[in-house]
């Protein structure tokens, strides 16, 4: 990388924001192959198709969207669990979309992930202590057995488990406790940035709140930055500082949490919010309801122009021809829709 290609953060975000992660034009196309001996790509699934966003140090960026919109793929690309097809990922001033495997392994000391399913993401043959301690050994963060055990005990304590549980196997824990083990494992290397990929959606409602509070406490204590991926809009509203809404491989709206929820601009965001029922029959009956027709199209063959136009209640003829550019429709409020009255260019 030459200096000319360094991200010019000052141009896109106000200078006072300390940007930790800057994703630009990220694309991830998965090939669909055919053939018996010679596999050739016959088509591409455009899981992410040109995504730009930034995550500021110490904040939580919520990434919401329906299943198949590319939110998990985005999280995995950032950690380089996939090699992106195109685009740049600047983490702490270092471009990592093209980084080599060895470089990347070192980078992962700073970036970690918490997975959705606490049942399948823990190795059933390892004890909780070894699951949490393995990254310590891999990254050489402890010098001897005693330090290792102490650090594992400390981590268990930090996530609200008892140190004596280190010798237990995953099946001996409940769902909520397993997710705590997942959190402790992510914390073990003392990272700056954690991708939380649907960390509470597999848990029961009364347990969800425990894990959300834990994540918030840890963020405060260790000054963590989160990319919080979830489909539950209420959870995202609670935990995020800013929110990005994805639809079919593209980000359609990014803004401050309050702006998104109180004054959504993009028609998809509006529909998405109105579809979430709130647990209060009186208030809920008064809310605007937009029931979208149809379903999310296939990312194999996305619609022309704006990908949302076939389902959009306010689409015009131009929508099927013009691909809408993300722009500031309000100060610090980005939306990609040509029918939303504009503010200024992106």
């Amino acid at each position, binding site marked *: 990388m030459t200096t000319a290609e360094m991200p010019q953060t000052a141009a896109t975000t106000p200078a006072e924001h300390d940007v930790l992660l800057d994703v630009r034009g990220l694309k991830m196309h998965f090939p669909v192959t055919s053939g018996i001996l010679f596999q050739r790509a016959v088509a591409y699934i455009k899981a992410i198709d040109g995504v730009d966003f930034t995550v500021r140090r110490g904040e939580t960026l919520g990434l919401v969207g329906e299943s198949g919109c590319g939110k998990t793929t985005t999280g995995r690309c950032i950690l380089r669990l996939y090699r992106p097809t195109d685009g740049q990922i600047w983490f702490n001033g270092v471009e990592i979309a093209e980084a080599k495997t060895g470089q990347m392994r070192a980078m992962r000391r700073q970036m970690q992930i918490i997975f959705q399913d606490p049942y399948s993401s823990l190795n059933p043959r390892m004890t909780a202590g070894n699951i949490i301690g393995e990254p310590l050994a891999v990254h050489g963060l402890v010098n001897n057995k005693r330090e290792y055990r102490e650090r594992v005990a400390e981590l268990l304590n930090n996530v609200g488990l008892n140190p004596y549980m280190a010798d237990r196997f995953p099946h001996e824990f409940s769902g909520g406790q397993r997710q705590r083990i997942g959190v402790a494992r992510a914390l073990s290397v003392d990272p700056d940035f954690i991708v939380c990929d649907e960390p509470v959606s597999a848990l029961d409602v009364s347990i969800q709140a425990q894990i959300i*509070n834990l994540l918030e406490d840890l963020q405060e204590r260790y000054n963590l930055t989160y990319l919080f991926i979830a489909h539950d809009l209420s959870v995202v509203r609670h935990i995020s500082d800013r929110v990005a809404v994805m639809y079919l491989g593209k980000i359609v709206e990014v803004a401050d949490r309050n702006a998104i929820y109180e004054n959504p601009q993009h028609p998809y965001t509006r529909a998405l919010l109105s*579809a979430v029922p709130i647990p209060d029959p009186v208030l809920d009956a008064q809310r605007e309801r937009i*029931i979208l027709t149809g379903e*999310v199209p296939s990312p194999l063959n996305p619609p022309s122009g704006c990908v949302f136009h076939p389902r959009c209640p306010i689409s015009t003829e131009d929508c099927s021809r013009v691909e809408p550019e993300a722009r500031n429709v309000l100060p610090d409020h980005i939306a990609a829709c040509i029918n939303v009255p504009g503010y200024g260019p992106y």
Partner: protein
Amino acid sequence: MDPLLEVKNLQTYFFTYEGVVKAVDDVSYEVMPGETLGLVGESGCGKSVSALSLMRLIPDPPGKTVAGEVLFDGEDILQIDMDDMRRIRGAKMAMVFQEPMTSLNPVLTLDRQLTETIQLHMGKSRDEARKDAVDLLARVGIPDPERRIRQYPHQFSGGMRQRVMIAMALSCNPQLIIADEPTTALDVTIQAQILELMKSLTQDLGVALIIITHNLGVVARYADRVNVMYAGKIIERGSAYEIYTNPRHPYTVGLLDSVPRLDQRLTDEEGQAAKLVPIEGQPPDLVNLPQGCSFRARCRFAVDKCATEAPPLMPVEVNNSEEPHVSACWRSEILGVQALSYAMGTG
């Protein structure tokens, strides 16, 4: 009006190596014709098992409905023989399952799966049944039904499969549909479509609906009355309005407080970010239920009496709706006082 379905003291136990799991323990409720009843609770609270018990679909062994009555149109369907039960299932009471991916037969076309029930229960010929099936698919909003009916389940998306399940449930004009987590596997925009569809169809056809779900928002929007279940028992029942505005069981209160809501205040008076209030601890082990109230270990309001005597469902003293409101808590009036002081801004 007589209830369409009356469940009396239903007990369904599972006999396992670890012991007897009391999945449904002395549950009673009724469903009026045409109403929508919500059954809410967390996983393992017995809400699905209670529904499967009504349909007599509990795998035996290890499960068994050991006691209770289920009066459907005045007849105890737990006592009739399996042939008679088969005539009721699908025809008078139908079920929509959670997993639209696995509850359709993958090797049969929709045509075969939909017409089978119609032919069997309605005594129609193959051609008549197919015509009915096409009409049904159109009714549940599947475009181009004549072509789609010849396709296999894998050619449908999740939301479309759930529409097919609803069409199947409606196919013999049932009086009651039991929907077990009908939208849990679906996205929010599709969830809204499916629930609106179920609501309008059941209203138009006068079909009673039991919605089983863990999602309090879904129940608030679509149910007339709500049963809240915990550890195999119904712990609170009332109109949806009452349950949400005047909850009188600590578990219901805890459940409502612990979910983040779209309309929630995000900061408190001092401008600090508001925290969620989780229910501490875990649900009890259904093999070794504690004596007394099963929620006691997680309850902020527990007193000595809770440890010895299990509270029955008792009417709450203030009820703002016409429906009875009952709660299984010795201290439900304390919660009423709390709610009142909170509403007046002194709590």
